[in-house]
């Protein structure tokens, strides 16, 4: 459970840690958006180079990123199999009964893997280098224009930061309940699929009950400390835009121009 790297902040140092979280979020969005339009080996290669550069700048061990990819491996495999089997086209590389693997299918499958891994790693870099609270306040700041059309941005941001705050708590709680039920003989890894699905109930019920209780407690704790509205709250850490952010924007601009150029070369 604690091996889950996605969404986890890992303390460290370097330019990616100093950057404004807003910059990092925007960069991630631009990167992922562009990646959707990647259509050739060179564009993927260009994206991969950019990603590796970012990876190295975090100064974290590669093992950490491997652990980030591992939990979603099956998801990647599943998509790959779908791509392989249902892409159609010619030439056919391999056929066994109704199962047919074609060259476009194979190429698509490889593209899908690369795209998946790049997107996941880029978001992992964002969360590894940015504490959840910083992400929440960055999102609030980025959404500010929506206030004009009466979107309760401050409330949304507060809800988000509370939700993020609850993630490690719930993970700890899950671990604890899992151990308690294991001590009573729970086994999630044996039996039929139906049996396994049923085996999760003793885990989920206490988890939900506990989460609701915690939510009530938190609501009360906020009320007694005079919480009325999320609007107009001040911050402990103000966001500030610096030289590192300018550098980052230059980097992402270079990446974007290069990417577009490469995708037209084809």
């Amino acid at each position, binding site marked *: 459970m604690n091996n889950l790297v996605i969404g986890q902040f890992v303390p460290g140092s370097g330019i990616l840690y100093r950057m404004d979280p807003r910059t990092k979020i925007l960069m991630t969005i631009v990167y992922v958006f562009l990646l959707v339009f990647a259509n050739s080996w060179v564009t993927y290669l260009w994206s991969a180079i950019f990603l590796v550069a970012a990876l190295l700048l975090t100064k974290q061990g590669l093992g950490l990123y491997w652990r980030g990819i591992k939990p979603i491996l099956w998801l990647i495999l599943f998509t790959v199999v779908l791509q392989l089997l249902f892409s159609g086209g010619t030439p056919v590389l391999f056929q066994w009964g109704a199962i047919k693997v074609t060259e476009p299918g194979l190429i698509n499958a490889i593209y899908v893997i690369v795209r998946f891994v790049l997107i996941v790693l880029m978001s992992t870099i964002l969360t590894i280098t940015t504490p959840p609270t910083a992400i929440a306040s960055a999102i609030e700041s980025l959404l500010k224009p929506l206030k004009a059309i009466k979107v309760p941005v401050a409330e949304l941001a507060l809800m988000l930061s509370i939700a993020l705050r609850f993630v490690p708590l719930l993970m700890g709680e899950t671990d604890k309940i899992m151990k308690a039920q294991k001590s*009573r003989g729970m086994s999630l890894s044996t039996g039929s699929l139906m049996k396994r699905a049923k085996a999760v109930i003793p885990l989920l019920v206490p988890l939900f009950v506990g989460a609701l209780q915690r939510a009530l407690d938190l609501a009360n704790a906020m009320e007694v400390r005079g919480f009325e509205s999320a609007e107009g709250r001040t911050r402990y850490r103000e966001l500030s835009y610096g030289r590192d952010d300018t550098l980052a924007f230059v980097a992402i601009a270079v990446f974007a121009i290069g990417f577009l150029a490469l995708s037209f070369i084809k």
Partner: protein
Amino acid sequence: MVINIEGLDFAYGAGKQTVPVLKNINLTFPEGQITAIIGQTGSGKSTLVQQLNALLKPTAGEVHIGDHTVTNKTKEKALTPIRAEVGMVFQFPESQLFAPTVIEDVMYGPKNFGATDEEAKQAAEKALAKVGFDTSLYDQSPFNLSGGQMRRVALAGVLAMNPQTMVFDEPAAGLDPQGQAELLDLLRTLRDEGKTIVLISHQMEQVLALANQVVVMKDGQVAAHEPVEELFARPQSWFADQHLDLPETIAFQKEMEKQGFVFDHLAKTVDDLAKQLAGQLDSAKLTGQRSDQAGSQAQTGGPHHE
């Protein structure tokens, strides 16, 4: 069933980011005795007891649980039978309740270990009776009960598996005084039935009243492991170093010793303490004649009460 820990090291995490918690632990938990584990929060008590039913596997070293041996390489499947032999009651165990009715929740453990519905029901009823749970509430939802009642149901959930060894992680935390007293009685009953009991506690009175032997944990290592009488005979300064308190009766005894009183054994209860004190005071004093020397007299010859 004897549990024996040999050369155990344990660290959380994997790869580069490991957090060592336990270092070179060697311990034996004798059959039919109550072993208390005390120590500051963060000293590794909970991590240690989770080795006893193989919820955690040692990073290095071996844990012998009855006929089973757990090492770093033991397969997950081999661990489940151990949990039928070593019952684990976590801190605030009521947070593990899940079933729609009390009786079903208590039956969960026995059924997991292969009991039929009928057998599980019998075991559950027996366990609920043992914790003094009201028969009329068996079909209630556990979530409608009071905190104390929920604790009983959770305890029964582990008792129903009838494990040979039971581990309790601060079982009395948050209970009212009567609930605490009943819990201590339950632990005694279990010990008298021949069960091996491991108890984590911050309440030194509880440790003094129950434990045969005590393990003191400090920074992931065993700072002391000895019979309870020997432990509490250690000087006050030693306890201060471990950030631990002495039980009130013993703290009082030690203060009185500074005043020149001499006791022949550690007072386990207030009653015991009062009797020993009475023995120390000479009859002259008790009849109201003030004796100026009484305080400084090191009295050893007074009548000894048991």
